[in-house]
């Protein structure tokens, strides 16, 4: 009987290597999500202020990420910033840098949307009670906005995890690269490896992203009613 070729996933340390590659992907994604969310919270607050130069600059910053594909930004950072600074920060850090800045832009928009969706009387009641601006944000606006931000934030996280697959194109050794190595190594012995390896990576990404999408939808439904 001809072998199916699925054994290639379990030969030697292949299985663990693929999982290790996935870990690199997740590490890059989650570091960027963390930094991006922190920066994005600040950016979202700034975007609700009534200073038009600030609004313009931050809007421009967001649109730059929305119009130019992320892969292009990865290339720009990889081919220009690193040589310009004359330090080799490597593909991984480049990726974290780009994804964090992108995440900050998108997160800023989510935060702004959530803050602006709050009824105006919330702010006014706070003022009427004699709270200072900082207190209004701290005790009234932010706690309410956080609920509205949650579904969007989780969606952004899954988008960032999916986009992290691109880092293989700037030379980072993550799950897709490990997959390619396994396929190349088995060209003779396991000629059918590619369908299993890529199928497996496909499922791995699904297993990471699907629970997050479910969670996001759950929050969306709960707070809609």
């Amino acid at each position: 009987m001809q072998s199916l070729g699925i054994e290639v996933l379990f030969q030697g340390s292949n299985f663990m290597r693929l999982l290790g590659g996935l870990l690199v992907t997740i590490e890059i994604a989650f570091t960027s999500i963390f930094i991006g969310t922190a920066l994005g919270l600040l950016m979202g607050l700034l975007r609700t202020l009534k200073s038009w130069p600030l609004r313009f600059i931050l809007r421009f910053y967001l649109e730059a990420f929305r119009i130019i594909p992320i892969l292009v930004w990865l290339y720009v950072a990889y081919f220009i910033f690193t040589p310009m600074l004359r330090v080799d920060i490597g593909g991984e850090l480049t990726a974290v840098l780009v994804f964090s800045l992108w995440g900050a832009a998108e997160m800023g928009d989510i935060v702004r949307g959530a803050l602006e969706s709050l009824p105006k009387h919330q702010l006014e009641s706070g003022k009427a009670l004699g709270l200072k601006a900082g207190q209004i944000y701290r005790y009234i606006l932010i706690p309410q906005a956080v609920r509205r931000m949650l579904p969007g934030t989780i969606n952004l996280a899954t988008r960032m995890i999916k986009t992290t697959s691109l880092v293989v194109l700037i030379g980072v050794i993550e799950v897709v690269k490990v997959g390619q190595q396994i396929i190349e190594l088995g060209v003779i012995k396991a000629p059918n490896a590619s369908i299993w390896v890529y199928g497996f990576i496909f499922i791995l990404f699904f297993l990471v992203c699907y629970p997050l999408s479910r969670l996001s939808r759950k929050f969306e439904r709960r707070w809609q009613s």
Partner: protein
Amino acid sequence: MNLNWNYIYESLPLYGEAMWLTVKLAFWAILFSLIVGLVASILQHYQVKGVQTVITAYIELSRNTPLLVQLFFLYYGLPKIGIYMSEMSCAIVGLTFLGGSYMAEAFRSGIEAVPRGQIESGLSIGLSRLQLARHVVMPQAFAISIPSLGANAIFLLKETSVVGAISLMDLTNLTRDLIGMFYRTEESLLLLVAAYLVLILPLSFLLSWLERKVRYAEFGD
């Protein structure tokens, strides 16, 4: 930064070709995604038995996996079980697989947003289910979906930047190649960014104009 304008001028035709490829890919991807999305959302809306599970599974699979991995699977994986496709077909199939689910979600939320009263009024004047869909639900659902359909179209256009991974000479792949050959990094990247601006800015303006236009069709307000 000292730009070599001569180099930029000489590379323009290459970038033109790559842009044309991107436009072609995006055109077919958006068109097929719209068709897949429309069919999927209609089947889902009318709760056709059996098909519904398949559609839900498709939407979840497509939305929760990266395009790059989908393309690798199509291009390097499928030939192993005897399914051969050209790079171009792989890219279009991959982009449609991805875009179809996004379009389906956009149509679905459009259909759900049509006020209940509209459907009931249609039924009360004796329209059949088909007439109701054709004359009442769909035109309004379509108008409501326009902004998200437009956003998805731009999303797909941007996603074409990944097809270089299956050796299509699109804008990003060309840039990578040129940088490798001539070391004119700044110039090549400038052209790359400029090319995407030229492609996406007009599309984005066109869509916001279209959005304002179709708003007139909305009931009430």
